[in-house]
Structures are given as C-alpha cells and as structure tokens.
C-alpha cells in the first residue's frame, strides 16, 4: 500500500517534482541491501529517509564545491572540486576510493578517445594531407619546371 496517494492532478504534479529531487528508491534500496545481512529487512520509510539524506548530501557537497569555483572565478564544477569539497566537509575517508574510481573512469575515457583516434589515424595514413595543397594530385596544378 503506497503512502503517497496521488489524488487530484496537482498532486500528481507535486509527486512528479518530488521524484525529480530524489534518487530512485530502487537504486537506493539496492545499495542499502548490500550492507545488511540477507535475512534483514529494510522498511520503506527507511529507504525514503535515505533518499532524502542522499539528496541533501549531494546539495551540501555541491554547494561547497561551487562556492570554491566562484571564489576562483571558474564556471565549471569538476570532479576534483567534488573531491575537495568532500574532504573539506569531513568525508576524507571517501577520498581514496573516489580518486581511484575517477582515475579508472578517466582511463576508460582515454581508451575510448584513443580507439576513436586510431580510426582517424588509419584514414590519414591512406589519404595524407587530404586538406593540404602540397601533395595534391598533379592534375590540379600545372607543374612546369623551368630549366
């Protein structure tokens, strides 16, 4: 039985917006289940409370990170800013696993970029300097040597 009974259409709108500011309960619940023993149960309300806490966590850390960016006159909050904010706010235990995670992600991105680059390189080797005039087919120019 759902506790959030959707009645009038404006309730539906509110409900929809509510969902947007929270992470999905299924995902949150799955992570919680990884911690408790298999025969343990987690109440729906506990999951909902956790959803609220996570959103608050994101806001809390993002605020700290964005303030740093503002002070440094940077427009974009990046991964390192998030890591810095977490350490500043006391979540320094997260620093090592996060940096590892970020490094692996960047490696993956690098591999992807390299894979795409290889494709481009192969083409270039077949058609060198395709945009340059030097090396264009001679029919484009009347090459005459003056002895």
């Amino acid at each position, binding site marked *: *039985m759902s*506790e959030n009974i959707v009645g009038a259409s404006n309730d539906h709108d509110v409900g929809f917006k509510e969902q*947007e*500011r*929270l*992470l*999905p309960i299924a*995902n*949150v*619940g*799955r*992570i*919680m289940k*990884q*911690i*408790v023993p298999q*025969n*343990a*149960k*987690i*109440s*729906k*309300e*506990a999951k909902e*409370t*956790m959803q*609220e*806490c*996570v959103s*608050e*966590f*994101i*806001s*809390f*850390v*993002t*605020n700290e990170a*964005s*303030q740093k*960016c*503002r002070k440094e006159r940077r*427009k*974009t*909050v*990046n*991964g390192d*800013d*998030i*890591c810095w904010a*977490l350490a500043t706010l*006391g*979540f320094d235990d*997260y620093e090592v*696993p*996060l940096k590892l*995670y*970020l490094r692996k*992600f*960047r490696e*993956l991105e690098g591999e992807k970029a390299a894979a795409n680059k290889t494709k481009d390189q192969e083409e270039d080797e077949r058609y060198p300097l395709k945009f340059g005039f030097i090396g264009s087919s001679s029919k484009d120019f009347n090459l005459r040597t003056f002895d």
Partner: protein
Amino acid sequence: MRQAGTYSGILSGGISGKTGPHLLPLARIKKIMKKSGEDVKMISGESPIVFSKACELFIKELTQRSWMVTMQGKRRTLNKEDVASAVMATDLFDFLVNLVSESGEATTPLEMDTSNYS
C-alpha cells in the same frame, strides 16, 4: 536512461568489476546538483560520475551505522528511526539533523508502520 551511450560500459559494472547494478542515475544526480544553489552554473561531465560513487559510499556508511542501531534494539528490520539515530550519533552527519527531525522520527512502537517492509 538517457546517458546510456557514453557510460553504459561503466554502468554495467565495468569499472568496479561488480556484476550487480550499483550505480545511480547520472541525469538525476546532475538535476539535484543544479538545484542545490544559484552558484552552480556548469557541471563537468565527470562530476555526476564522482557523485554516483560518493553517494554509494554515503548510503553504505549511513546504512551501516543505522543497522548497528537496529541490532542494538535486537530487531531485524531497519526502520527510519534507526537512520535518524545514526544521524544524531555521528558528527559527520550533522547536516542531516534537521532533515531527520522533520520527518518526525520519535514514534513509539505502536505507531510504527509495519505494512511496508520489503
């Protein structure tokens, strides 16, 4: 999920090697980040990625502490009061104190909703 193309390899558990789904939706994380304040103008592509891991760690830590409260009460169901207690007992989670107080966690056993256990 809309960002499946770029991150699908990671999302299927590639990075951490885990087989189960453990990541959180990046688009949603980004939305929540954007709503957190007026200062937030632009967010790099990797920020939600970092947060998905940070949130996972956060959920695990808070769950761990909450479960300890559950066990102290010799129960097998983790309820929201346990989460509130864990928040109160941990300095690191001070920023959540108002949040868990608002949800009215001080209920007696008679008032506990027992119909929504997973």
